[in-house]
């Protein structure tokens, strides 16, 4: 069903054609805003961004700067499976895999770069990760930089845990848990 909006294009009446009353009406609106904001600047919706930040609304909290989670022994949870790199629509993730010398089961990322200049903050990498290794829950919003190179996050920038982590309990990584158990760690 196509909806039709009828526009009332009636010709202007005499008062409107001499403009002045309508100009006064328009000025009344803008002047009201001017004086209300002049005497009550706190009422304006502006947020002075870097100094003052609003709490992010629900879903937006899971779309902040990336991080790579760590295990209890400070090795990355990531197994370099390339799922996130494949899922990324902006091609901003670059992974180079390497092997542990004493573990034939899984790999680790020797290089894990995220180019924030290209990232669209879609969260597809988090969705794609089978190991729950990448997360976007740091609540940091990537801002502008003077230099393009500084927007490139390397593995060292990404690897970190939030307070309270790591917890082996409930970790989705069965292989990792077995590996840790065989090494005698907890």
């Amino acid at each position, binding site marked *: 069903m196509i909806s039709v909006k009828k526009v009332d294009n009636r010709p202007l009446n005499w008062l409107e054609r001499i403009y*002045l009353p309508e100009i006064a009406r328009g000025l009344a609106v803008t002047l009201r805003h001017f004086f209300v904001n002049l005497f009550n*600047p706190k009422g*304006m919706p502006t947020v002075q961004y870097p100094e003052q930040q609003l709490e992010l609304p629900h879903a937006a909290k899971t779309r902040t700067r990336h991080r790579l989670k760590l295990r209890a022994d400070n090795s990355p949870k990531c197994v370099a499976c390339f799922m996130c790199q494949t899922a990324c629509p902006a091609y901003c993730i670059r992974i180079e895999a390497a092997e542990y010398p004493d573990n034939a089961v899984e790999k680790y990322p020797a290089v894990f770069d995220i180019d924030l200049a290209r990232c669209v903050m879609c969260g597809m990498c988090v969705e794609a990760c089978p190991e729950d290794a990448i997360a976007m829950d740091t609540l940091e919003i990537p801002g502008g930089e003077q230099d393009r190179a500084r927007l490139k996050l390397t593995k060292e920038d990404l690897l970190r845990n939030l307070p309270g982590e790591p917890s082996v309990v409930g970790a989705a990584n069965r292989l990792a848990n077995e590996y840790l158990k065989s090494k005698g760690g907890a």
Partner: protein
Amino acid sequence: MTEFYAANSDLILFAGAAAFKTLVFLNGVMGFTALLTLAERKVSALMQDRIGPNRASLFGLALNGLFHPVADGIKMVMKEDFVPGRAEKLLFTLAPFFALVPVLALFSVIPFGDYVMVFGYQLDLQIADVPLGLFLVLALSGLAIYGVFLGGWSAKNNFALLGALRGAAQMISYEVVLGLTLVGLLMIFGSASLQDIVRAQGRLLFGWLPAWGVVYQPFAFILFLVAAVAENKRTPFDLVEGESEIIGYFMEYSSMRFAAFMFSEFVEIILISMLASTLFFGGWQVPYLYESGFILPGGKALALNHYLVALLQVGAFSAKTVFFSWFLLVVRWTLPRFRFDQLMGLCWKRLLPLALLNILVTGAVMLALGKV
């Protein structure tokens, strides 16, 4: 040499005083212009529920954006000064001067106060009391068209030329209305010297109403304001430049050359405000304030020092100027833009007949009252 000084001492004193007044008044105007560029952004921001520029800071002191004019100036100087390859270099360089200089020269005839006695020397608070000041105003503001047209033409860019043609058509058309609205005032005050016009507005009508120009000619004031805004090329008459959409006459200009065009626009705002207050709102006159002090209509008198009176008068003139500048900013950010045919129709079909009618009615009333 000393004989020369002795023989021409009053002339030298006059020249020195004039140079001093020029220096002080023009510097005041320039400073106010710089603040006006900030005020434009702040006023528009407040009208649109925004805060406006407030980040430029000196030693960590932002003062809610007070240093933005300085930052703008530095930015403009640092930008590349680009001249198109095919441009007429000389005229391309001259055009910004043609836009700025006539406007600045106009401040010489505007009285910003009555007079001050300094060591027994009577210092008129006006740079040049030209007997035909009002005509000088019209003539010099007509010269500003050269800035627009040369700027558009010498860039050798068809879009700039189109903007310049529009600008010339608009400015010449509204020049006519601007001149005709002032004829009524000329008839009433019988003088074209702006200082005489302001002095005449110090009288009282019916014993209580200040005889300001707007009381005699309220209709001419509205026409004057409309024509002056159009002359200034600002919204709702800004389709000469139309910063956001239409391509204007200074599109090939960059750096300080562009800034000169922009600056002249803001200087013109001040000029219009000063002219509006001088011609229609009593200039430096404060109601019921005379040379000796306040004399209220009831007969009560309050004697004031001569310097205090002069200060009050200059303050009143500044306050009126600031008010009209603010009003022009508010108008600019309230109204949408005219179409070009509407612009021309408004000028030739409405304002011009109304201005002529105003002259006719003024003449008829003066004849009926026997004031001719």
